[in-house]
């Protein structure tokens, strides 16, 4: 049923679109409520002893009229605080929950990754688990079996194919689960905080994989509350709050609103009477040329002269500033961090001037700063800010990430007598 979807039949906010691909996920007017029993009657005994007690339900509206679409090849972020409805939304997209109202349509094969290694059975071998997991992720049994070699090769576990999973180390298990996900090769991938498992090396592997998929122009929907990931990878991001779509657009803007939402509450709780909505904001941010004029294009090898001033929107305790320079793929080319050995009062400004060695190959780049603070839970990034987008031009070869000084010369060797 239904006419073929066009770009314009979607109601709801119309954000800036970076991708002009066709619509592969079309969500319109999604509503979802959970009935949460105040006193749950779980057993017949309770029912028998209180036969006339009506169970009181509290209606929790997890999603309210959410509409958006995702284009082919887009890396789409869904962000929000805990309980904002983002996981519910993903589960509806994945066909795990049924929406109360609204419509979801998708194109192509969709693989949901709510968790790594779903349905893994420790008593079975990797071979058997691979087949089962592949089918669970939407492949046919034949595809899943054919794919198994690739999965094991990716996980570097070929020699353990007939070993039971219970005998796998946890590292091997994560590698195997991740390989199944990577090799499932669905048209649309729905991913929920998979990055949260595993160690730093694994997180790095995930990021590499996501970047690779992004470069290949595959569609990914990622639920996360890590704004760094959002700003690094996503073309667009959607902000959910109390089940409502609050914002949909550029990841930087979404991240900013997310931070605003997150820390507004904290500041209010601390008795701040001022309307403070972000942790810090950019007063000015520019790159300067040798004469001190702001520029957007920098010649290669020309140092990056920073002119950045940030203003604290709440007191910051010994903040640490981590600068990232990313290329057009969203890959961080380099970063450097500086800690301010002092507390910044509300409204206090921090200035950065100085220059950074520029070894970037020609291309487009962005400069971000992440502000971190030490709190009870350890170091925490409290805000990410986009400072500038800039272009490096020049004649240096554009392969690789950086140019280096290489003191190497070819010398023709005399033939041996």
């Amino acid at each position, binding site marked *: 049923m239904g006419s073929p979807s066009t770009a314009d039949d979607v109601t709801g906010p119309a954000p800036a679109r970076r991708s002009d691909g066709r619509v592969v996920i079309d969500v319109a007017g999604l509503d979802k409520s959970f009935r949460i029993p105040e006193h749950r009657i779980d057993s017949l005994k309770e029912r028998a002893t209180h036969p006339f007690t009506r169970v009181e339900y509290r209606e929790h509206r997890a999603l309210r009229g959410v509409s958006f679409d995702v284009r082919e090849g887009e890396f789409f972020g869904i962000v929000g605080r805990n309980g904002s409805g983002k996981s519910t939304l993903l589960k509806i997209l994945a066909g795990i929950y049924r929406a109360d109202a609204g419509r979801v349509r*998708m194109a192509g094969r969709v693989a949901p990754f709510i968790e790594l290694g779903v349905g893994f059975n420790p008593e079975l071998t990797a071979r058997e688990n691979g087949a089962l997991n592949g089918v669970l992720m939407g492949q046919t049994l034949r595809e899943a079996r054919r794919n198994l070699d690739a999965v094991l090769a990716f996980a570097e576990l070929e020699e353990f194919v007939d070993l039971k999973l219970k005998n796998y180390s946890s590292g091997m298990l994560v590698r195997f689960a991740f390989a199944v996900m990577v090799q499932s090769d669905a048209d649309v991938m729905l991913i929920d905080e998979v990055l949260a498992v595993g160690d730093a090396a694994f997180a790095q592997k995930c990021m590499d994989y996501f970047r690779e998929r992004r470069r290949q122009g595959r569609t990914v929907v990622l639920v996360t509350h890590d704004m760094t990931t959002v700003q690094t990878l996503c073309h667009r991001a959607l902000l959910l709050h109390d089940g409502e779509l609050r914002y949909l657009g550029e990841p930087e803007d979404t991240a900013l609103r997310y931070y605003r939402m997150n820390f507004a509450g904290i500041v209010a709780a601390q008795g701040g009477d001022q309307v403070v909505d972000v942790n810090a904001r950019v007063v000015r941010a520019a790159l300067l040329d040798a004469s001190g004029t702001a520029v957007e294009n920098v010649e290669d090898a020309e140092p990056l002269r920073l002119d950045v001033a940030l203003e604290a929107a709440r007191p910051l305790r010994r903040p640490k500033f981590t600068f990232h320079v990313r290329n057009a793929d969203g890959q961080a080319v380099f970063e450097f961090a500086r800690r301010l050995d002092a507390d910044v009062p509300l409204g206090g400004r921090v200035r950065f001037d100085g220059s950074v060695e520029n070894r970037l190959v020609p291309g487009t780049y962005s400069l971000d700063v992440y502000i971190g603070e030490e709190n009870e839970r350890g170091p925490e990034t409290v805000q990410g800010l986009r400072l500038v987008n800039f272009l490096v031009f020049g004649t240096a070869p554009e392969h690789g990430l950086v140019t280096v000084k290489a003191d190497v010369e070819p010398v023709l060797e005399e033939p041996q007598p």
Partner: protein
Amino acid sequence: MSDAPAPLRDVPGPSALGGGTRRALELLYLIAATDFKKHYFGTALGYLWSIARPLMLFGVLLAVFTQVFRLGSEVPHYPVLLLFNIVLFGFFQEATGVAVTSIVGQEGIVRKTQFPRLVIPLAVVLTSLFNLALNLVVVLVFLLAFGVAPMWTWLLFPVVLALLIVITVAVSMLVSSLFPRFRDLAIIWTVLSTVLFYASPVLYPLEKVPATLRDVIMINPLAPLLELARKWVIDPTAPGPAALAGGYAGLLPAVAVFVLVCVAAVWVFKREAPRIAEEL
């Protein structure tokens, strides 16, 4: 990896068979095979246990009913009949008993993947069916050993088997889909299936039961099925379900219960399936 752009299609959310029949069948096979391996792996006798269990029960009951109660001597081929009944009823009891907690037991899959709900109770029945097939081989050996001559009516046995599978699937669907909301069901069902064991002509042939009680037992749809199996497979001189019920009209209550259970199973399962993930 499709080259032609795939069209947008609705994502209706979870259901009994959502995701297509092929996917459901493949999952059914995988889950049933997994269960079977899981169940018997690590036990010394492996698959033999699925045969050993009913045989041991059979041995005990045979001793009791031929040596203590002397029931066996009046019924032709009583030992084989007893084994046959135990195997058939055992299938129903095992499948429904495991099915109760099956959906909750597969929580990880149900809550984290798009999964056709019906596959879970069906896989349970399929695993039990595999056991049943092994056990029927044993029954066949006993049939021949006890001198039951092969009959053409053996060919009719699949009809009984089909009806038995249908009612087993229906009850499995009912209990598995209701259990997430009514957790007492697991205990209730253990009691209920024991009651059913005695209220079915497993240990005794139905003609030995007083007429009034017989009418009550004949409401149980398993009763005419077991009697039919007995007449067709073991003892052609047995009265058969129609005669025991006092004519074909007497079978109507059992048929009604059978149909009612099936309709209820489909209705309840369809109603519960979309929300099961939220109830877990």
